[in-house]
């Protein structure tokens, strides 16, 4: 009984390490292709344009609506709390740290994951099941160049651009709340925010968005491309991909908090 228990833990540990190694290897190969100019051909660029459209343009109305709704509510709470604790003079840096460093990239990553990562995981798994990957191999079309790179690049572009948009919407909401709660005029608000924004905040936003965009695409693609032999394997592939993705997103968020606090 105890031996079996220990063996099962060992199995899980070995599977976890192997899976981790595989995904790191896949990421490394993708990065090598990413920096190779020969990877870019008209077909790949066409997929890239379509993917950017699907990941960031079609999501825009829903994304803006959520950004206004949640962003306003959360920024409102932050401003009310700051007023209660007499932190009005720090309101600029509080808003900037909260919006630019933390909330905008994280919330954007969650939205893109829910909207696009599941779609991409399913798309890859279905292509795998339908033998379409065999077609690409037979016709000497590199799977990494044609399927992986456009999605990776679109993930990074979408994540960065939507995070900036989300931050702008939240900062605008912040002005509306400061106007009502603190009677702050636009000029003062603008002055406070611009004074509080530092290069470090912009770099944090960009680096976190790039990291989120990268994992939001690479994990579902990897999960979908792994062997899928029957229809019943598709939901399992999506579930496994999404669990790994959300663990990685939270890991990046925690890691960034630790790095910033150093």
């Amino acid at each position, binding site marked *: 009984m105890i031996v079996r228990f220990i063996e099962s833990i060992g199995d899980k540990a070995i599977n976890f390490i192997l899976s981790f190694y595989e995904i790191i290897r896949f990421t490394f190969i993708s990065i090598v292709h990413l920096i190779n100019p020969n990877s870019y*051909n*008209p*077909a790949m660029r066409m997929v890239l344009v379509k993917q950017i459209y699907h990941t960031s343009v079609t999501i825009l109305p829903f994304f803006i609506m959520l950004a206004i709704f949640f962003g306003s509510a959360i920024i409102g709470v932050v401003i009310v709390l700051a007023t209660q604790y007499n932190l009005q003079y720090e309101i600029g840096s509080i808003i900037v740290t909260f919006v630019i460093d933390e909330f905008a990239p994280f919330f954007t990553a969650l939205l893109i994951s829910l909207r696009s990562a599941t779609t991409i995981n399913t798309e890859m798994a279905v292509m795998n099941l339908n*033998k*379409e990957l065999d*077609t690409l191999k037979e*016709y*000497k*079309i590199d799977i990494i160049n044609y399927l992986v790179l456009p999605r990776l690049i679109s993930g990074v572009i979408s994540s960065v651009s939507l995070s900036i948009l989300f931050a702008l919407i939240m900062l605008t909401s912040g002005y509306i709340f400061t106007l009502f709660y603190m009677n702050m005029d636009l000029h003062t608000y603008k002055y406070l925010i611009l004074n509080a924004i530092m290069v470090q905040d912009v770099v944090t936003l960009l680096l976190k968005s790039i990291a989120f965009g990268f994992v939001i695409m690479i994990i579902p693609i990897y999960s979908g491309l792994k062997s899928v032999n029957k229809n019943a394997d598709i939901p399992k592939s999506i579930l496994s991909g999404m669990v790994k993705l959300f663990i990685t997103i939270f890991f990046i968020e925690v890691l960034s908090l630790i790095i910033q606090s150093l």
Partner: protein
Amino acid sequence: MLEFKLTQENYSLVSSKIPLILSLNIVENIALIKEVHIGLSVDKAEGIAKESLEKIGLLDIALMSIDKCSDLEIFYVMFIRALMMNRGTILVESPYLILEEIINIEILDELNQDKDIIILDTFENETKYEDYRCNIIR
């Protein structure tokens, strides 16, 4: 005696084992090969694909998705796709696994100018090749 040596490098396969890409329409499926292998622009590659489709009267399906096409149309599209590869032979493997209608060999001739076509099939489909002018290897 007909002798040929096939390696994966000198033939393009037309087979149910290598289907069309579902997320692409007909013309995109054909154009993909030239876009990837010779870096032809999307417009030019799709132009060539449309010319081929026009030759056999299938231009009207160019922008259709695969699930809107008949099995025979899909077969001809797979054949055109194989023609886009820079390989000397087209190997058609068991076409009647996916087809019920008889292939019109004149259509294949119309499309193909310079490549050898080899069709691999089982004896039970022998009658379907009765009108073919080519040799049948038993």
